[in-house]
């Protein structure tokens, strides 16, 4: 058995509103998402666009919290947010061939007795350069369900730009 297995890769050959993985195997210890994304918006945003990750078909942001620290230009930022599931930033179509890059870890995702915790690092080199470290929790009240479904969207409710790609990896214990 491989220690790290690629579960699924999605290449975005056209602009795409979301990436969804369902019926995730519960056989791994941890999951990792590695992605390059850009938002499909026709204009850039002064604060870039955010990548949102939802799990278990719970698309309500009050079910998520996060804390992050990031650098953008000469500005350092650190903050915590209730009702937020953003795990990094990217720009829009005018900035291509820049794409935002992401590594997101989901620890012990199959454990039904823990709240699900994410950590993410992200970088973007386009018009608004940015680098960020984020940690978040899916709590859904006190629900401690194992994760069997994930949904990735651009928080701007627009598309992921064509050319993006993402792979979900499973990490085994041996």
């Amino acid at each position: 058995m491989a220690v790290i297995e690629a579960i699924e890769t999605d290449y975005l050959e056209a602009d795409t509103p979301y990436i969804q993985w369902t019926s995730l195997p519960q056989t791994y210890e941890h999951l990792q998402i590695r992605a390059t994304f850009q938002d499909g918006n026709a204009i850039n945003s002064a604060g870039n666009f955010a990548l949102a990750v939802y799990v278990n078909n719970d698309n309500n942001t009050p079910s998520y919290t996060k804390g992050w620290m990031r650098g953008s230009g000469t500005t350092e930022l650190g903050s915590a947010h209730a009702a937020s599931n953003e795990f990094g930033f990217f720009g829009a179509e005018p900035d291509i061939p820049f794409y935002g890059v992401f590594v997101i870890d989901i620890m012990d995702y199959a454990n039904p007795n823990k709240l699900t915790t994410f950590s993410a690092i992200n970088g973007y080199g386009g018009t608004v350069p940015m680098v960020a470290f984020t940690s978040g929790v899916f709590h859904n009240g006190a629900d401690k369900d194992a994760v069997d479904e994930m949904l990735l969207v651009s928080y701007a409710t627009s598309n992921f730009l064509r050319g993006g790609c993402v792979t979900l990896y499973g990490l085994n214990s041996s």
Partner: protein
Amino acid sequence: MADPAYIVDGVLTDGEAWVGIAHETLSLPAATVTWISTADGQTGDFSQYMDLVIVSYVRGTTASVNGNLTLRLNNDDTANIYPKQVFRGDGSSVYANVFTNDYADLGEMPGSSATANVFGVNVCDLFDINSGKYKSFLAQGGSGDHTDTNSYATLYSGTWLSQAAITEIDLTSRNLGNFVAGCKFSLYGILPRMVA
């Protein structure tokens, strides 16, 4: 010619997604560590990977203040071709800034002014290395100890402003010093899902 591990009897399989490509442990000080794609369809051929990961355990021969671990891709030293966003903490404050140079900074590195035998660590992810995108990286690092005023925890992001596939990686120290003996460098290739 032997098949790579992910081809069994001529059939593509999804085996280990992380493939160890190369590992270097310096027995003598060295100015540069270079990896070049073998371009032969074997493990060392970068063209088959989605991402690359560089793991470094490093210390330099010159003062820590100038001891950045730096990267060039495809031996490209064109002026201002590597913009980067840096973000780091020194134990009491944080610092963010942007720079553009003819090399990419992956992180800080202990040097001659650091406590003896302290090495820095760095993990650098290079994304979608064979695409037509500009090639971007994320690098996390830690350097030195609390007695070294040039010791940092770092998270750097940068871009090589080229749409070419990555075929060569060169690691150096920013001020052209050497890496000391005992430094270790590992290169991993990250495969995508290859079978439906």
